């Protein structure tokens, strides 16, 4: 069917430290890998969507100068941590609109050693107090009126969930156990930034960043890239049996922003837009949460993973803690979550993440995930959140 869009080729680079490679090197490695995986050349691509948040907004053309200046439209996209998913969706939309038969989406970030992200409003105070900005502030407010750092913002997101759904156990240990799961999962993922298992004790005794998130409970800053080639359903039918067998159907591609809620400009509301995206995606794909064989969700912090169990409707409303404690989200559970190791252990090179999580799902649907293969996987979901906010959800299905 011409209105279907398929992933024909997809790949990710090793996430970690790549001191000898720049963003274009990593993007080229991923793009060439995706084209090779797809079995088609750059000359067939009708659109390039390039995601790179911290690099200045011209990745697409720089990449073309290395792998092929074919004159096609380039969209340089930025959408916080949803940048990769936005690039992928841009390519999907172009194919779906009939403007291109094939599209290439790339996301890359150089983030190794980046340290804390955001929390930048604390500049030196001036010599006289002068109100400025939208709050008429006479001095920087980060650390004076709440926190702007991501580990602190997302700590509050998780704690807010426990405020609404009281938990009688130890909050800190609960969130640390989520991180323990993801650090265990990544031991089977050779492309993860961290592949060493961490005990619960090690996680809890590591450096506290913003309670209850210790360092290993925060997403790992690292370098990496991912890329995907998408194709229309009608063109896919003209390709080889092998290409058709390995192609993965994009059953839903959804992007949302946060609708206004009472507190959303006080503490970012990462819940409503995720619930909206999930509802739209399930409806578009004609599948429900119970049909999912694996989920890659945006565990930028251990405290975030918990709320997204609920937001993606993987559990009963308010039941995220019980759901986790049942073991459902471990790789041998009923709904394996972040079998790649997630952002906490696989790593989070921002703009690569929203394509890398789709790669992880595709890898399982194709039966190519090796030691970490979720047996018989047919349907999977990939989710990202970019704070501010944007939410991308993709539902993927194995070729029949």
């Amino acid at each position, binding site marked *: 069917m011409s209105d279907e869009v398929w992933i024909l080729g997809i790949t990710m680079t090793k996430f970690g430290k790549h001191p000898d490679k720049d963003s274009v090197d990593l993007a080229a490695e991923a793009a060439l890998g995706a084209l090779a995986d797809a079995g088609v050349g750059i000359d067939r691509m009708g659109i390039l969507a390039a995601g790179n948040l911290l690099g200045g907004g011209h990745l697409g053309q720089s990449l073309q100068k290395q792998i092929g200046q074919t004159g096609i439209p380039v969209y340089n996209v930025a959408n916080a941590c949803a940048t990769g998913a936005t690039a992928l969706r841009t390519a999907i939309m172009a194919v779906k609109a009939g403007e291109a038969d094939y599209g290439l989406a790339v996301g890359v970030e150089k983030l190794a050693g980046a340290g804390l992200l955001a*929390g930048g409003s604390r500049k030196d*105070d001036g*010599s006289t107090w002068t109100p400025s900005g939208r709050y008429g502030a*006479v001095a920087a407010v980060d650390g004076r009126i709440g926190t702007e750092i991501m580990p602190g913002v997302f700590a*509050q997101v998780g704690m807010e969930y426990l405020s609404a759904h009281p938990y009688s156990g130890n909050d800190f240990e609960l969130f640390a156990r989520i991180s323990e799961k993801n650090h265990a999962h990544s031991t089977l993922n050779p492309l993860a930034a961290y592949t060493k298992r961490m005990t619960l004790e090690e996680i809890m005794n590591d450096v*506290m960043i*913003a*309670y209850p998130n210790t360092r290993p409970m925060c997403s790992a800053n690292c370098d990496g890239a991912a890329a995907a080639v998408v194709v229309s359903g009608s063109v896919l039918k003209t390709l080889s049996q092998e290409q058709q067998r390995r192609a993965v159907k994009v059953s839903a591609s959804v992007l949302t922003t946060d609708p206004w809620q009472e*507190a959303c400009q006080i503490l970012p509301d990462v819940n409503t837009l995720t619930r909206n995206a999930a509802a739209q995606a399930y409806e578009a794909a004609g599948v429900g949460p119970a049909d999912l064989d694996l989920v890659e969700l945006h565990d930028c912090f251990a405290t975030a993973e918990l709320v997204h169990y609920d937001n993606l409707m993987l559990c009963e409303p308010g039941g995220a803690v019980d759901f986790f404690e049942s073991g459902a989200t471990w790789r041998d559970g009923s709904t394996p979550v972040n079998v790649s190791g997630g952002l906490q252990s696989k790593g989070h090179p921002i703009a690569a993440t929203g394509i890398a999580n789709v790669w992880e799902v595709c890898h399982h649907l194709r039966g190519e995930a090796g030691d970490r293969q979720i047996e018989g996987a047919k349907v999977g979901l990939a989710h990202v959140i970019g704070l501010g906010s944007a939410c991308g959800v993709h539902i993927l299905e194995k070729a029949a």
Partner: protein
Amino acid sequence: MPAQIPLVDYLVLGDRPHLVAHECSACGARYFDRRNACASCGGTTFGTAEIATEGTLRTFTIVTFAAPGIPTPYVAGVVDCAGTSVRANIVNVEPTPEAVTLGMPVRLATFPIGADSEGTEAVGFGFEPA
């Protein structure tokens, strides 16, 4: 007493310090920043709403690792002030998970954050256990 200036323009000083919000005349949505229009309904007229000075702590974090120049640890949180959410530090409390608890009652507190070269004192705010 030296001249005072609030850290942000939505903090009103004086005998009875309190916070104020821009309240959308059409839908009642409240905002602490300068507005172009209402993000909830698109309205462009706003009144001023006084925010309750007592509330409950809806969520918090204890920041121990911050940007250079910010003293740590400190407690950051969101306070539900009679239905209006306020971002603030939680002050006059031990910054430990034992001392800071979800749902604890808190009240507005103000404190000087320093004087500028002309001797004007800036005053910040937080919420302390009630």
